[in-house]
């Protein structure tokens, strides 16, 4: 979700004087909310990651003017024809094949509007541009450019990149320039450049502009804009967003011819797109009691033009938006324009029978029994590490679910049994009054190639009892009573688990299957955990008890 800074003064200049609360209310129409205010700066959370046209004050105001009644329907922008030309060399084909461009003249930048321009560029780079890979844009001082511009593979090129004071080769930029280090991986060692007819480098997309043409200041009056990437259609949106934002600032738009040798295109191409919707369906879908005429009015506020066609509406919008896939998107805008909080909430009358899963209901029974035995319930994390699961438990490693990008080695695996979590709990409570009896009913993960996720969740119950003196038989009494209370038969069988003391450990068998274990924890394991009193424990597979 992009967060953008806007100036309150700037906002008011284009609208009217108002309080932060009033601005806040208006921003709701743009899926934005105020996240903080510092002096003149309002921090705005823009929630729609699919609406780059809303990531600048110009874009936000375009919408808000519709709700203030200052403008309505599709905004009008004129594109002047021109002779400006960008010639695309075929050498770029395998590196970064496409570009679309525009020229905007007659701008009067101040600090605020310049900040907006840079901010919009950054937000588009990060989100829509997928960190500049899919779309990267550059803005240049038009008056320093000698036309036509060439877009070609970078060969024998040196230029002064923005932020440096000496000429560098692409390789040097890759190595030493902060932007080079950050973005070079996109290109795999080959680069493209925009150069003008005096061989002045404009930029090396998507990495860095030149210091000479690629710096825009408050003195800049006219700009050249380019967007580069891999899919021509995909590049149109950011170009349209940026050029219309500048047009909102009073700039005059000029087209640029992009010469792809085989074919030529003129950009920016601002076109009306349309979608056919059923007004009645939209009204019903939202649950409103309004007329078709009202839907039209609401859509006009959201900067759509609407035309009637028999019993349908043709809803038109300008192609700085690309988020409209079907009638639902239009329905949402009708609801937003109407105001979510004006819609009267109504609980649907759908009668269904509620219920917990059988497994959960069963764990509740187990819980009740364990609590009856005086055990305190605990709840621990699924994330843990191999040290806890294996080494400290005195057993060999097994294949378990491991995290590729852990934040900390402590949380780098998902547990495959519960007992280590319980022992870790006991370790942390050495100085708390004894006896300590704790249990947990929780999930673990086991590798299972037959499962669609390569592993399966299992619900386990583990119980520990620790005191100056505890022993196997006492815990077996508890286990035995647990089984008898849930009406289940079990057998016990000698086991060879190294976690427990020999001859004081057993596997628990139900229907000829191992479903858990019971035992006195081996002193070696207690030492590993720095636990000072004997512990007797059991762990069972809950689903097998059902």
């Amino acid at each position, binding site marked *: 979700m992009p967060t953008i800074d806007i100036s309150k003064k700037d906002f008011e200049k284009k609208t009217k004087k108002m309080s932060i609360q009033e601005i806040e209310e208006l921003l709701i129409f743009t*899926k934005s909310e105020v996240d903080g205010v510092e002096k003149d700066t309002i921090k705005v959370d823009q*929630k729609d990651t699919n609406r780059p046209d809303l990531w600048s004050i110009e874009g936000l105001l375009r919408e808000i003017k519709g709700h203030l009644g200052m403008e309505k329907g599709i905004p009008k922008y004129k594109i002047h024809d021109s002779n400006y030309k960008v010639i695309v060399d075929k050498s770029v084909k395998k590196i970064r094949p496409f570009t679309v461009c525009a020229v905007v003249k007659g701008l009067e930048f101040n600090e605020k509007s310049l900040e907006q321009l840079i901010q919009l560029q950054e937000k588009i780079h990060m989100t829509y541009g997928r960190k500049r890979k899919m779309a990267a844009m550059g803005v240049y001082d038009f008056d320093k450019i000698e036309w036509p511009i060439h877009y070609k593979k970078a060969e024998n090129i040196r230029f002064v990149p923005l932020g440096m004071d000496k000429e560098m080769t692409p390789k040097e930029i890759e190595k030493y320039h902060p932007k080079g280090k950050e973005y070079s991986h996109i290109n795999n060692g080959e680069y493209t450049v925009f150069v003008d007819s005096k061989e002045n480098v404009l930029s090396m997309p998507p990495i860095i502009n030149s210091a000479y043409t690629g710096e825009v200041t408050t003195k800049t009056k006219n700009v050249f804009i380019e967007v580069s990437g891999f899919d021509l259609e995909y590049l149109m949106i950011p170009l349209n967003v940026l050029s219309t934002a500048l047009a909102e600032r009073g700039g005059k738009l000029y087209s640029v011819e992009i010469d792809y040798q085989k074919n030529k295109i003129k950009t920016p191409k601002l076109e009306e797109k349309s979608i056919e919707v059923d007004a009645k369906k939209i009204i019903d879908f939202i649950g409103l009691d309004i007329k078709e005429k009202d839907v039209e009015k609401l859509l006009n506020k959201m900067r759509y033009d609407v035309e009637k066609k028999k019993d349908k509406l043709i809803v038109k919008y300008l192609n700085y938006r690309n988020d409209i896939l079907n009638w639902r998107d239009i329905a949402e805008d009708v609801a937003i324009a109407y105001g979510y909080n004006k819609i009267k909430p109504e609980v649907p009358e759908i009668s269904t029978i509620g219920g*917990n899963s059988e497994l959960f209901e069963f764990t509740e029974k187990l819980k009740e029994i364990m609590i009856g035995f005086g055990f305190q319930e*605990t709840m621990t994390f*699924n994330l843990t590490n191999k040290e806890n699961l294996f080494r400290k438990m005195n057993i060999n490693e097994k294949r378990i679910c491991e995290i*590729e990008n852990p*934040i900390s080695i402590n949380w780098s695996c998902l547990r495959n049994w519960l007992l280590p979590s319980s022992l870790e709990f006991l370790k942390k409570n050495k100085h708390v009054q004894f006896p300590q009896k704790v249990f947990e009913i929780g999930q673990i993960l086991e590798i299972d190639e037959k499962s669609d*996720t*390569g592993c399966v*969740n299992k619900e386990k119950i583990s119980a520990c009892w620790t005191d100056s003196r505890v022993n196997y038989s006492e815990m077996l009494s508890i286990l035995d009573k647990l089984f008898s209370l849930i009406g289940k038969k079990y057998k016990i069988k000698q086991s060879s688990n190294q976690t427990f003391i020999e001859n004081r450990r057993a596997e628990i068998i139900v229907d000829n299957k191992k479903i858990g274990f019971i035992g006195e924890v081996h002193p070696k394991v207690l030492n590993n955990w720095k636990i000072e009193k004997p512990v007797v424990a059991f762990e069972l597979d809950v689903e097998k008890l059902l």
Partner: protein
Amino acid sequence: MIITEEGKKYIENGLPEENLAELAENNPITIQEAKNKIENFSIALSWAKKKNLIDIDKGKIIFKKHDDSNDLDLLKKIEKGEDVSEDDVEKLLKRKLVSIQTDNLEKKAKKYIGKNIDFLNEELIKTGLWERVKLKPFNIETKGKEIFPGKRQPYQDFLKDLRDKLVKLGFQEMSGPNIELEFWNFDALFQPQNHPARDWTDTYKLKYPTKGFIDKNIMKNVKGSHEKGWKYKWSPEKAMKLMPRAHGTAISARKLSTDAEIPGKYFAIARCFRPDVLDATHLIEFNQIEGIVLDKNITLKNLLGVLEMFAKEIAGAEEIRFYPDYYPFTEPSVQISAKHPKLGWVEFGGAGIFREEVTKPLGIDVPVIAWGIGVDRLAMFKMGIKDIRYLFSDDLKWLREKSVI
């Protein structure tokens, strides 16, 4: 000397060995039959043999003679308080039909007579001599050693309350795996594969196992939905990668693709995983409450109705506000803020109506309203804690002492 419970029973019903002999008197009977008819069969059998009242042949009991001992008469005499010889007493003592414990009790109890004592005891109560002792006054403010009952974990308890409310509202539980395919976490929810939210730092990836599998038909549908809607080449390999579930909506997507009924209401309490450092305000794992309602006539107005009901029922909200929001998988999307009496305005959760690009590939043709609610802050408030780590507390003392109200 007193007659034991066993002795009393024989006075009433006769000696079991004699009863057994009588039973077999006319016709030999099988052991099984006798077992069913005679109480204390094993006692009856052993004494009948000892007294030579019966014989056993091929599993049948054969009558030999009636009991000619005076055991029953002796018991009756003792009951009436008549004197019997020491040899006779010895015989009954051995068979535990009488006991001379009372004499000991009385002896013990007599020691206390006229004294001030700390504790009332069994001897005094049984002999009735408690009337002749004095019990010392206790300091009624003095407690014994601190004791701890077994108890529910407070956060689990909170989640249980939420479940109860949801179940009352007619919601059925659904569940899903903690390790999830990217497909269910993202793709089925119409999140493009090159979307920044799928990026490395926002979610965990799995090192092992790395790959799962997906139903071919569903995969084909979702691929179509992505390539048409987002205009890029969808990769099945990426969708088959595994990750710890990052949000509960993955469970809803799975439910829609399998056995969701129309109309239907479902909920899940989903453990979710996102890379975060564990500290007072962040957890490495958290729980989300996820819900969906399917119905052919469901509307945005209904979604708002359900959310309002939740905010009031679950969060105890006094007031609520809805805000337009954005999720790739819902259109319209709603954020709900609830005014809590103590916490003030709290962002309560995200909701919306699933996009047709989500529901249609999963085979659902009706609108589905959906929401995901992070409950940690509410739980913290309910539990009266400031440090979020206490939701998963490893402090036994605190767990023991935490009030259950």
